[in-house]
């Protein structure tokens, strides 16, 4: 068997030989990660996940236990690695955008937005004010639906089942708005370089207004179920503590960082899409435990509602996409009457646009933290290198710090509280 000839191939294809077996780690290989007591059998090394409902996707934790207490745990990721960054290098800028939805599937609009912001930084495209306002509304709605999923699933982990059902009910209203504007409930690809795919339909304002009116009362209902619930407080207060310095050293951002007392938010510190004109606060807490993260996220949902209602009040009229025909396709009505438009359309759809060579980094605030894109162009029609700086990786990385010394049951609550998306981490 000539192994060298089969480089770069995962699947062995010798006739008669089935898929190459996936090697497993042995305890010997991971010896440096566990305490010496694991070798003697004094502590137990167990496997948690990847198929486990409380790991929120396909996260595998190798947990070292002393009785019921977590001595150490080693997160193992990559089960959802789909090579999106590699694939994007083989597609034109517009086609590659479709793949960005699939990473953080609860914040797909934000994934589109940060990619488009990077392209806009590279090319100098300028989205019109209406496009910016709609981007803000949609990303905040997206943040709300992500937090709704989080409040549902993380309280489900702590055996508070009813919140989950209510949260899914409210999330449906938001997904209906996404379907209204783009035809898709989750993977919208609605935000495009230079603006939006098309203007929102006439029903949009009323639908968003309904969410803005209804949601604060519903958030009160969740709070009534959880915030002063003694069982919930017992399971969350003092569990999974982390401090600001550790967060910064491990690059943790978002609500987990803000729950330690540092008010860092990309929407305030590096405003994008006109966030500077809206009046909102950055909720913080001091304790840095699971309960603090819960309070921060619930307060954040209220702030999101505030931002949406302000953006809706001063939603300007006008075009929703930049007019630069070298980057933005002409409208269908123009193609029939203008030769230039026809040529531009043809060029954009066959070859794609060519931004100048160079590398940029742009970032936004995702529900989980700083979501950034490092985009390098070589002057060709395809991105030379796209790297997504995803907030889930640092969060997964600090699970051992959060979980040490707690019970296995609390480990479940800790994983729920940091709100990880494995599609976001593995890409």
């Amino acid at each position, binding site marked *: 068997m000539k192994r060298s000839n089969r480089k770069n191939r995962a699947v062995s294809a010798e006739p008669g030989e089935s898929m190459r077996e996936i090697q497993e780690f042995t305890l010997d290989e991971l010896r440096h990660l566990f305490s010496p007591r694991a070798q003697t059998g004094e502590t137990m090394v167990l496997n948690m996940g990847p198929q486990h409902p409380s790991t929120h996707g396909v996260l595998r934790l190798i947990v070292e236990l002393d009785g019921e207490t977590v001595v150490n745990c080693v997160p193992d990721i990559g089960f959802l690695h789909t090579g999106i960054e590699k694939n994007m290098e083989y597609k034109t800028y517009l086609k590659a955008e479709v793949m960005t939805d699939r990473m953080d599937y609860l914040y797909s609009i934000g994934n589109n937005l940060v990619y488009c912001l990077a392209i806009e930084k590279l090319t100098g495209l300028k989205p019109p004010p209406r496009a910016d306002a709609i981007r803000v509304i949609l990303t905040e709605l997206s943040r709300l639906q992500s937090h709704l999923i989080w409040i549902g699933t993380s309280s489900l982990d702590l055996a508070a089942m009813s919140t989950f059902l209510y949260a899914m009910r409210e999330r449906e209203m938001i997904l209906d708005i996404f379907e209204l504007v783009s035809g898709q409930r989750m993977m919208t690809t609605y935000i495009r370089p230079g603006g939006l795919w098309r203007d929102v339909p006439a029903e949009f304002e009323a639908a968003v207004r309904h969410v803005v009116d209804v949601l604060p009362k519903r958030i009160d209902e969740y709070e009534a179920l959880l915030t002063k619930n003694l069982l919930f407080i017992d399971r969350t207060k003092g569990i999974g503590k982390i401090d600001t310095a550790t967060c910064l050293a491990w690059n943790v951002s978002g609500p987990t960082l803000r729950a330690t007392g540092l008010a860092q938010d990309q929407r305030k510190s590096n405003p994008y899409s006109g966030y500077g004109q809206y009046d909102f606060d950055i909720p913080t807490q001091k304790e840095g435990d699971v309960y603090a993260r819960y309070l921060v996220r619930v307060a954040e949902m209220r702030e999101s509602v505030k931002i949406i209602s302000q953006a809706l009040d001063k939603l300007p009229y006008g075009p929703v996409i930049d007019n630069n025909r070298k980057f933005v396709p002409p409208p269908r009505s123009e193609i029939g009457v203008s030769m230039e438009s026809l040529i531009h359309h043809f060029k954009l759809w066959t070859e794609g646009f060519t931004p100048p060579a160079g*590398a940029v980094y742009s970032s936004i605030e995702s529900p989980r933290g700083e979501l950034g894109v490092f985009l390098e162009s070589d002057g060709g029609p395809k991105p030379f290198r796209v790297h997504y700086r995803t907030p889930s990786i640092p969060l997964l990385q600090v699970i051992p710090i959060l979980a040490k010394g707690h019970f296995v049951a609390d480990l479940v609550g800790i994983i729920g509280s940091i709100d990880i998306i494995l599609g976001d981490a593995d890409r």
Partner: protein
Amino acid sequence: MEEIIQSAEKTITERFGAAASEFRGETTLLVPAEKIVDACRVLRDEFGFDSLPVETAVDYFPRTDPRFHVVYVLNSSKTHLYINLRVPVNADPAEIDTVEGVFPGANWREREIWDLFGIHFKGHSDLRRIMMPPNWEGHPLRKDYSLGYEEVQYTFNYEEIQSKKPRGER
């Protein structure tokens, strides 16, 4: 605000022989490979760049000298400024010092770069594959790693590709 970037640029350029450039309002410093850990430490301790949001690499194949750039984006939690560092890495040996000692969060980022680009980080505490299975061959994000389509056979390279085909003759 901008003064911090300028003085950081000046310090790193003078002390470590870095080359500064600016593109779209972002400052990028091209730092020699052996100075990267010191440069990160100086930026963290003297200029307040206390977190490392991004560490990634770019492959410039078929260029070999240097073949890769390892890219670091540093952020300051006080001033909210960003600064980019770039380190050229040769094709053979593709290795560079780890910055894990300065930013512990670089651990998984460097594992990812090792996994997907095959750049070895000297002194890393736990350099295992992170995305791909442990027994994977090759490093997928390298430019000479094909995406998985079938390669087109011409007369001049027929034999070579035929020998690599899954059910081809060997």
